[in-house]
């Protein structure tokens, strides 16, 4: 596992047509912390994730992860810096099994030599076993052993969300971007997610950035909260500070200031 670094986002902006989806956003994520990004729908939270993952080209600003200038990289090179992500709408390989999805999560760690792969030489066999062991560790951590050989298309929504989280972990990231890990889950499943995120933070030492609407989960897991509205940073602070912040309350509830 690569050592956690600081993610620095500076003056990040992007426009879609005439709309400033993200405008002059700056924040840091320190190694080992959990940062929650909150804000009303359409505030630009997922857009920030998509900018970090290089799906969108920003019109202005910089994104650095440790020494790496992410804006100089292509989307497929992001995971090599140690950043993995999940998606709000769950992006899995639908026609394969859970196990195969997780093994593809190991892609960046796998040997690319076509000839040794072809011959399935002892070295390749050994490394495949090692990848399988790593995957089994994650399966144990997230308690998805019962789905191991199920096809994704046959799984429930909650199970798919777990598998997507597991696949991201299989890449052994040092920073994990989670886009609404608890959306669509019932209270019990949300509680589980809370415990797992604590485990991921403490046991695996992964830095977490999560977009989340469930303020109980945010309060339970997050060290700091970044509140966004209409593409701009409203406030940044501890969960309690953000809860008491008048501007945040106004943005969420429409209270007159």
């Amino acid at each position, binding site marked *: 596992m690569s050592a956690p670094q600081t993610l620095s986002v500076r003056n990040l902006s992007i426009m879609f047509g005439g709309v400033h989806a993200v405008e002059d956003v700056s924040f840091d994520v320190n190694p080992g912390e959990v940062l929650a990004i909150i804000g009303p729908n359409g505030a630009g939270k997922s857009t920030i994730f998509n900018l970090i993952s290089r799906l969108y080209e920003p019109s202005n600003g910089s994104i650095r992860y440790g020494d790496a200038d992410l804006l100089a990289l292509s989307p*497929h090179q992001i995971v090599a810096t140690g950043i993995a992500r999940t998606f709000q709408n769950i992006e899995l390989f639908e026609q394969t099994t859970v196990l195969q999805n997780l093994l*593809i*999560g190991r892609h960046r760690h796998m040997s690319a030599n076509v000839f040794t792969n*072809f011959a399935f030489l002892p070295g390749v066999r050994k490394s495949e076993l090692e990848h399988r062991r790593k995957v089994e560790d994650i399966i144990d951590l997230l308690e998805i052993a019962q789905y191991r050989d199920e096809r994704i298309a046959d799984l429930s929504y909650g199970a798919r969300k777990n598998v997507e989280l597991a696949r991201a972990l299989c890449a052994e990231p040092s920073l994990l971007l989670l886009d609404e890990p608890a959306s669509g889950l019932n209270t019990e499943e949300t509680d589980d997610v809370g415990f797992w995120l604590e485990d991921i933070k403490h046991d695996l030492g992964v830095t977490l950035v999560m977009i989340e609407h469930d303020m109980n989960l945010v309060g339970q897991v997050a060290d700091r909260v970044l509140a966004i509205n209409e593409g701009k940073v409203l406030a940044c602070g501890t969960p309690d500070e953000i809860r008491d912040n008048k501007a945040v309350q106004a943005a969420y509830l429409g209270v007159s200031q």
Partner: protein
Amino acid sequence: MLQVNDIIHLAVTGLAQGCAYGLIALGFVLIYKATEVVNFAHGEFMMLGAFAVLAWSEFLGGSFWPAFVLGCLSIGVVGYLIDAQIMRRIIGQSSASIFIMTVAFGFIFRSLAGMIWGWKTLFLSTPFGGKIEIADGLSIGVDRVAIIVATVLLCGVLYLFFSRTRYGIAMQAASQNQLAAYYMGIPVKRLVSITWAIGAMIAAAAGALLAPITMVDTTIGFLGIKALAGAIVGGFGSIPGALLGCLLIGIVEPFADYFVPEIKGVSAYIVMLVVLFIRPQGLISQTFEKKV
């Protein structure tokens, strides 16, 4: 009345023809699975392949195998560039535009080949002349056997490539979900171009192997339409299905031509229509019903 020997002869001829269709159909299906583009110019890759091997063979002074390898690689480069320079830019446009684009490529390739190599039928000398005597009065052309053997070998290599190598598995992953593949560290765009290159190389190999039977001219690429029919029979999107469909069409053809000579050349499409009536999803279906 048909003798046993005649039946075997027709069957082997059909099998070889089916294998040739199958090699071309492999490219159709690989490209379709990677990009959801049906490349109507795929038969032209086969035609260009035959010309490229011929050109390399003349350049190298008549040695077939080096010319075969270089010819296939050359067409692989053409396939790679077609995707990387042109097809990549029109992804996301309407499927009608993409369809017309690939049809246009077919015309362009035929014209180019005619301008470079002329419009006359040429002969490619291969080591597959002669016949194998199997039994008294039953002999089979080495060229037919070569196509069958090459198809089996190529399918085996492709199977190992897609099931074992990191690139092959990454290609399968990208064909299921490109967005997710990017964040596993898979260079999706490059792999799509490599898929085009692989498809083009297999078609080129088919062109060179078929050269003793079809000769080499600018129109042999129309064979691709029958390969497309075979892929549809098999269930477009399934590689084993495409091979099966092409073998079926290939084997039906010589028998249909023998018994019902009036429909010569049309039997492939009749098979396709019949299969589409009975099993619209093809012999081996790849479409899964969506859960809600």
